[in-house]
């Protein structure tokens, strides 16, 4: 701290950097000054007067949320005058407030309630009839109850500054002021629910959670969102073994409070009526429900037969399974079943990036780098749609650090609104090279690229980065919650765990599908035959583990119902290589976690693939997968540790042609999204990918 300012708050000597706001200085020294409108990270509003404090030599009370600290300042945050002022403010806020706390969603975790409790504005001198406005539904997600609103502008700012959507405003004035949505009577927006969570009172409520429970009746389980690859921590509110909400109000995790609609609300797929409940075996051409024991026996017996006969077994892994599951699956396949044919749906060319970065350290960006880098270059990605959290980080970086953003995309993207330069071209490398002179000016750079840069182009992009003469870090975008982990764990026909070349190069997914000799296909949480595709081999024994009866499962001989990410523990690795822990939120009947299913099959086959148990498998991953030797306490406490698999060439590079992003939008999420009613109900924005 350069020349800190010395001041006294409530008799306590406090030091703070020049320019620090009094409210922040107090917070840093453990003194909480009440505030409704002030919110860290967003612009100052100074609208609520809750933060008034007594400052010596000032004739009047001062708003601590806008007052910078000054040398020698003597502050009393709970002076009688300040307390009286707050009490009056509260009395005023309550004049038109309905006081329907007993039924309000926010009751029990409401900031207004807390403040009234603390300052006791228990009596009102206001005897007029309260101004009432009926509640309004603005979208399947967002509801507004104007009478509860205290006009703190938090929602307006989070939507404008945080989301870059600017869908909310305040119209009219005084007691008649109301939040108004951008379409007059409804919202056309990201439906992220950030406005709802940031609302200090119960004025904004969500269609998912409203009137479902009281806050204290839930258990709160911190886990990782299972949709896109950004790896947001979401805290599930679980009641009676049902998820009733997701949020991240405790700000732990890499995403702070950020969540998009998928992390906050799209957990409903787990209770979709089509969810598989029981294993099924095909008998006389029909899938019939059987017991787990029977189904596992059928799979084990057939696998053993095929193995003994030397038949080709193909294995398709999942982009949602945990690292433990993916690692165990490939080990079981390679060592237990003796097959090299392992693959998954690849959405970004991570191996090529790791190869191109050989010998460099600190060249892989984290989610945090996107917030701190002086410049960010986005290539072939519609970040706000496909990677909402990364886009949020970039926006926050622009807002707080004036970062320079550059985009090279085929069509318009939201990032352009604040971009220093936006280039529209399908020749991404040419577009990038044209920005060389601009990029050189910055102290450091993060390059984020989509599936338009793959194979040799990745090397060229890194060579371009090298030519800039500034530190450059990279993010290779991938689609789903553990797409990155699937690759790191070696669910590839060419590469084993840690990008070591596989002993024998196996078939890729399209090759398996086209092979006449495929004897078995084991599909774990994937849908390679989506759209009614058929295997070339008519005789293949198909086993599918999934939550739903996918197109592939419809053709299967055995279907095993598996657990979703919210129903199991383990670790996942996000798009920036950050490993985080899943925590089981629910107990399930019928379905089982993939790892448990693998273990059952291995045991029935008499194959030793190690213990099918999370801690044991992760220990093995830490020892054998490059970069995964991360500190356990960090994960155990809900933190994220970045895997650093760099520093070596990848000797065999997978075929870039197989890299293709599914192109999900903000409101889709591959097969999971199809079973989320909430995602299906929000239609208007954002529409098609801006990516075009």
């Amino acid at each position, binding site marked *: 701290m350069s020349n800190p300012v010395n001041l006294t708050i409530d008799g306590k000597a406090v030091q703070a950097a020049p320019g620090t706001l009094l409210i922040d200085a107090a917070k840093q020294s453990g003194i909480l000054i009440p505030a409704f409108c002030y919110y860290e990270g967003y612009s100052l509003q100074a609208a609520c007067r809750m933060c008034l404090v007594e400052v010596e030599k000032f004739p009047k009370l001062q708003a601590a949320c806008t007052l910078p600290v000054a040398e020698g300042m003597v502050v009393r945050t709970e002076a009688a005058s300040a307390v009286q002022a707050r009490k009056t403010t509260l009395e005023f806020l309550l004049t038109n407030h309905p006081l329907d706390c007993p039924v309000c969603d926010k009751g029990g975790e409401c900031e207004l309630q807390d403040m009234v409790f603390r300052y006791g504005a228990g009596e009102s001198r206001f005897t007029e009839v309260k101004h009432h406005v009926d509640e309004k539904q603005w979208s399947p997600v967002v509801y507004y109850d104007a009478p509860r609103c205290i006009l703190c502008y938090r929602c307006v700012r989070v939507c404008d500054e945080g989301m870059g959507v*600017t869908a909310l*405003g*305040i*119209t*009219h004035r005084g007691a008649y002021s109301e939040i108004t949505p*951008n379409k007059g009577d409804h919202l056309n927006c990201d439906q992220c629910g950030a406005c709802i969570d940031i609302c200090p009172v119960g004025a904004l409520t969500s269609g998912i959670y409203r009137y479902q429970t009281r806050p204290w009746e839930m258990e709160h389980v911190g886990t990782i969102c299972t949709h896109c690859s950004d790896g947001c921590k979401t805290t599930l509110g679980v009641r009676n073994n049902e998820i009733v909400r997701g949020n991240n109000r405790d700000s732990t995790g890499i995403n702070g409070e950020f969540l998009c609609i998928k992390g906050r609300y799209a957990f409903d797929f787990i209770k979709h009526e089509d969810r598989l409940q029981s294993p099924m075996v095909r008998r006389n051409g029909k899938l019939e429900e059987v017991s787990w024991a029977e189904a596992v026996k059928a799979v084990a017996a057939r696998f053993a037969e095929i193995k003994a006969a030397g038949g080709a077994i193909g294995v398709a892994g999942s982009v949602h399974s945990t690292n433990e599951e993916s690692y165990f699956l490939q080990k079981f396949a390679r060592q237990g079943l003796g097959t090299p044919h392992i693959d998954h749906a690849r959405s970004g060319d991570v191996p090529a990036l790791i190869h191109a970065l050989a010998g460099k350290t600190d060249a892989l960006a984290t989610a945090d780098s996107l917030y701190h880098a002086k410049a960010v270059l986005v290539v072939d990605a519609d970040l706000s749609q496909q990677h909402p959290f990364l886009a949020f980080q970039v926006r926050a970086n622009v807002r707080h650090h004036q970062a320079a953003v550059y985009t090279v995309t085929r069509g318009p993207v939201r990032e352009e609104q604040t971009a220093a330069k936006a280039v529209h071209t399908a020749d991404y490398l040419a577009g990038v090279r044209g920005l060389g002179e601009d990029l050189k000016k910055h102290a450091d750079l993060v390059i984020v690229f989509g599936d338009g840069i793959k194979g040799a182009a990745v090397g060229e992009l890194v060579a371009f980065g090298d030519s800039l003469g500034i530190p450059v870090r990279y993010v290779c975008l991938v689609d789903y919650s553990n797409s990155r982990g699937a690759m790191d764990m070696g669910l590839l026909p060419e590469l084993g765990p840690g990008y070591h070349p596989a002993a024998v190069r196996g078939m890729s997914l399209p090759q398996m599908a086209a092979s006449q000799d495929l004897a078995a296909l084991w599909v774990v949480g994937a849908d390679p035959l989506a759209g009614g595709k058929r295997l070339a081999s008519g005789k293949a024994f198909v086993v599918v583990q999934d939550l739903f009866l996918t197109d592939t499962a419809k053709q299967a001989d055995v279907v095993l119902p598996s657990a979703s990410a919210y129903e199991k523990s383990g670790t996942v690795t996000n798009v920036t290589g950050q490993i985080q822990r899943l925590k089981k939120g629910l107990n399930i009947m019928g379905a089982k976690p993939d790892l448990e299913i693998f273990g059952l099959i291995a045991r029935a086959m008499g194959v030793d693939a190690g213990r099918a148990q999370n801690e044991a498998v992760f220990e093995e991953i830490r020892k054998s997968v490059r970069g995964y030797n991360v500190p356990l306490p960090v994960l155990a406490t809900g933190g994220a540790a970045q895997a650093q698999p760099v520093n070596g060439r990848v000797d065999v590079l997978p075929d870039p042609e197989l890299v293709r992003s599914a192109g999900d939008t903000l409101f889709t999420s591959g097969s999971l999204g199809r079973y989320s009613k909430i995602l299906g109900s929000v239609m208007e924005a954002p529409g098609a990918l801006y990516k075009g």
Partner: protein
Amino acid sequence: MTFSPELEARLAKMLESYPKGRERAALIPMLMYTQDEVGHISKELAEEVAKRCGVTTLQVEEVVGFYTMLRTKKMGKTHLQICTNISCLLVGGDELWQHASKKLGIGHNQVTADGSISLEEVECIGACSWAPAIQTNYDFHHYVTLDQLDKLIDDLRRIQ
């Protein structure tokens, strides 16, 4: 949406008077002067001003909803505003209001059938020293008596 050449010139100059990127600073004057020409702030006008100032239509609506001088309803050719706030009230503001209302046959924020005059009861217009005060569009009238108000209304009707 385009305006008269004079207004267009005025708006162009207005936008230039603020630093680049701060076009939104021109929002209120732009709304006022375009309202004068268009008559009221229609949805279309709000969208046009939003575009020119680089803000969302909702942000324009926030401003329009806040300021009473910005109107979303069509008003008369002359908008007659009578102050009934304290200083004016003490010296006959209310009588002026009652008189005008009766004579024109319209109430607060209403327009005469021929569209020539609209009436608004306003709070202090900052002319207390010359109370009672009234305002017709941008013109102030001081120490207004009932007779003067009568004549003013007759004149306004005649101009029509």
